[in-house]
Structures are given as C-alpha cells and as structure tokens.
C-alpha cells in the first residue's frame, strides 16, 4: 500500500513537473518572439541611421566612409557601399544595421540637388532705392565672369557690373564709378534683382559663423574653397557700425550682412554676399585690397548706402559663376529626393 502510494506521488510529481516545464517553455517562446521583433526593429533603425549619417557627412562637406561599423545604442551600423553619378547628382547607398544577431539592409537611390539659390544678375545687384553708392580709392567692380581665383577670366557668361532698380540710380552709379565699374554693360537697370529676404532664414539657421554681438573682430577665416561656409552678421541698424571686421578677413561660401557692417583691412571672400537691411550702410575695406569674387546682392527697404574703398592696390568686386557655384553647393544647402528606397 505504502509503495503504491509512493509511486503515485512520484508519478504525479513528474506530471506536474512536465506541465511546469511546458508553461516555462511557452513563456520563454513568447519572450523570444517579442525580443526577436525588438532586435529586428533596432537593426532596421540602425540601417536607416547609417543613411542619415552619410547624408549629414555630406552636409559637412566630407565624403562618408564605407565598410566601417559604428557602435550605437547596443548595436552597430555601417555604410556598405556608396556610388555617385559622374555629375554628382545621383547617389546609390547601401547600409546595414546589426543588433545582436539581427541584420537589416537598406538600399537607396537619391537625387541630390541644391536648395533654391538667389539669382545673381551682376557683380553687384542692388535692390533698393534710392542708392548712395561710393567707390573710393581704387575700388573696382567688374561684371565679367572670372574664375575662382578672381584673376583669370572664364571667357563667357559676363554680366553687368552694377544693376539698380531705377534709371536715376543707374546714372548715379555710372557717374560715381566711372571707368572703375566694368561689365556687359557696366551699369544697367534690372528690376528683377531677387529679394534675398526669403533666403535669409535658411542661411541664418545653417550658419557656420554668426555675429549677433557688437564688437570688433579681427583675423577671421570663414571656410575655404574646399569647405565653403555660411556666415551671418546681424548688426542691426546701428549706424555707428556695431560690427567691425579688421585685419585679414577671408572665406568662401555665403556671407549675409544684415544692417550696418564695416569690413576693414583686407577682405578676401569668394562666393555670394548678401547685404540686407533698412537703409543699409555697408563699408567694404579702407586700407588694403578688399576682394569679393562671386556676386553681391544689396537690398534695403528704404534705400542702401554701399561704399567700396581701396586705398592700397585696387579693390575688387568681381563676378564669378565658379565662386557662386561653390556657395550654391554648400553641403547644408543641399537636399535629397528619394528616387528608390528598398528595405
């Protein structure tokens, strides 16, 4: 009797053990399923992150590297391959994300282009009236199309030296500038000069260098031709020149000047210069050889006062489509359109 009871108890114990094991297994399978989904979604997110990281690398003017894993959030991602069309406007990217043993691959074809860029119709295009325009010393404005170095002519694509909104202002500029204003023609009325206001917010948001505090800044470098930059000077309407740049000031890209700013010493800037404000007063250079190669747009709600000086050798404000292209193609000013996205 006692032995039978013992066997029964043992049998029941074994049965309950089996049931308990099955319960444990089903719970474990459910957890595994959920965790597998977590791993899958994490790997997918990492693969997408790789694409975004690659594009942000382009934004910084650099080329993304391939085949190198980056650890992130317990997983890792990498750009497997990167191809670009000969004209640079189409990109093929393959990225991979890995989380534990889950991997995820994304294959993307993107069209790369630039954000809208203000049309520059002259070496200096003025969209303000009336215009107080002064060329002092040996300053020179030339609308012929120069190469990036500012010294060699491109051979085609010449523009006017200065455009204004009215005949009166054109006459003033022609009279003031004389033979120092060159171009095809030297001075012209152009009422289509673009209002740069619509572009300023983009430049402000993406500025690499911002000057919002009054003061004197010297020895400044704003990028170079390989890494053009966006500069935003917000001087306000203080006619006492609340922002001054002295010494060597050089750079490449987009230079936005809001309000009254004085550039002293040698200014050497390649790209687009936008001067905008309320009855804007801008002084480029005093002693030295200020040079702006690219294009200048001057806009003012109640007129503009622009002074170009060059008491040393000739100052230069020269049109250059090549320099403007550098500004247009700043990484931050590009955007991407999806042509195909496979994941």
């Amino acid at each position: 009797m006692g032995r039978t009871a013992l066997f029964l108890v043992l049998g029941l114990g074994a049965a309950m053990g089996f049931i308990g094991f099955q319960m444990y297994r089903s719970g474990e399978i459910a957890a595994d399923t959920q965790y597998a989904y977590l791993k899958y979604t994490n790997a997918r997110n990492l693969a997408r992150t790789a694409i975004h990281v690659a594009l942000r690398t382009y934004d910084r003017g650099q080329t993304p590297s391939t085949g190198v894993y980056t650890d992130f959030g317990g997983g890792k991602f990498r750009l497997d391959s990167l191809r670009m069309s000969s004209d640079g406007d189409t990109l093929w990217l393959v990225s991979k994300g890995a989380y534990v043993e889950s991997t995820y691959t994304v294959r993307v074809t993107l069209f790369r282009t630039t954000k809208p860029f203000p049309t520059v119709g002259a070496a200096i295009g003025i969209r303000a009236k009336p215009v107080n325009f002064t060329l002092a010393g040996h300053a020179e404005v030339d609308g012929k199309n120069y190469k990036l170095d500012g010294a060699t002519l491109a051979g085609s694509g010449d523009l006017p030296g200065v455009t204004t909104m009215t005949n009166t202002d054109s006459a003033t500029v022609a009279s003031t500038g004389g033979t120092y204003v060159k171009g095809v023609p030297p001075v012209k009325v152009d009422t289509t000069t673009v209002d740069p206001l619509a572009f300023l917010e983009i430049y402000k948001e993406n500025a690499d260098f911002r000057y919002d505090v009054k003061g004197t800044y010297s020895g400044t470098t704003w990028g170079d031709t390989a890494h053009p930059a966006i500069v935003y000077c917000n001087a306000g309407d203080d006619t006492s020149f609340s922002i001054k740049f002295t010494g060597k000031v050089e750079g490449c890209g987009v230079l936005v000047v809001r309000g009254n700013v004085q550039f002293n010493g040698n200014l050497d800037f390649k790209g687009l210069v936008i001067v905008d404000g309320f009855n804007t007063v801008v002084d480029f250079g005093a002693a030295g050889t200020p040079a702006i190669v690219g294009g200048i747009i001057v806009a003012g709600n109640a007129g503009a006062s622009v002074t170009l000086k060059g008491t040393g050798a000739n100052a230069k404000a020269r049109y250059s489509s090549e320099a403007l292209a550098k500004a247009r193609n700043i990484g931050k000013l590009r955007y991407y359109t999806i042509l195909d996205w496979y994941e």
Partner: protein
Amino acid sequence: MSAMFDVVASSILFGILILAVARVQGNLNSTMYQNTYNMTTQTTAVEIARQVEHDFTKIGYRVTGQKIFTADSTEIRFSGALSYGGPIESVRHFWSDSPDTTTMNPLDHRLIRATTSGGAISQRLGITVFRLSYFDTLNHQIPTPVTGLAALSAIRSIKVQIRFESFEPIPEADTSLYFAVNWEKIIYPRNLGKPK
C-alpha cells in the same frame, strides 16, 4: 481493528491528496492553456506586424506614376516591387467583411493578403480590429475612403491599428474574455514622396 482503521484513514488521506493534486493539475492546465494562447496571440501579432511592415515599406518601390489605388479604413491596394529589383506587383490587404466562423471568437475577421505573384491568402489570425488611416505630408489625416488621384497621391504615411485576440476565450473565465494584443504603427513608405 487497528489495521482496519489504518486502511480507512490512509484511504481518506489518499483521496484528499488525489483531490488536491487533481485541482492543482487543473489549475496548472488552465494556466498552461492561457500561456499557450497568450504566446500564440503575441507570436501572431509579431508575424503580422512584420508582414505589414514588409509590404507597406515597399509601396511605390520601382513604380512611376500612381502608387496607391485603394485607400479605405480596412483596405489598401498599391503597387510596388516586393523584392530588390524585382517585378512590380499589385498588393492588396483587406479585412474581410464577415466574421470568421471557424473560431469561437465572434469578433475576429480574416485578413486577406493578395499579391500578383502569390495570389490571395486568407489569413486566420484572430484579428478583431484592423484600421488604416492616411496622412498627407503635413500629417493631416485624409478622410477615408480616399478617392481621386490627387488625394491618393497626397498620402505620405499610413497608420495601422490591429487588435489580435485568441481564437477561444480564456478557460474557466467569463466566456467573453479573450487574450488580446494591440499593435499600431505609423509607417512612412519612403517611395511615396518621390517624383512621378
């Protein structure tokens, strides 16, 4: 006399033990069933989530022109290649109008997935809610059914809400109680915004 008392007493104790063990086993079995249903429901939810994500992220892949053809609250039909560089297929997901009578759950309907290459597959998954919502580029919801080429072309994201329930009610509980898993996600098919 003493031996007889031992036999009777041990039989009573044995009977009590058997009853206790039987009850424990019953409870264990019930719990095991619940775990199994729970696991099945969760597994189904994950599998369908992956299926929906797999298909919906392919909307418009390799397609030029119109990409979504039907967009209703329980149905979507679109074009897209389902494999890398593969042929463009017509894909349709819809929740059947009538409940699935092959399960004990009175609320579940079948989800039908139809593709050009795979044909129509009626999936018995215990889905009691299948709701699709559509949003434009500004994340404004587009009323369903979305009709007209302009409205269909304006779709940029799709919100998917699915409720999975077990086929049978929870054992030894109110018969109207079912295990359930809710899954919802807004999917942004990247190919929807590409140029025509």
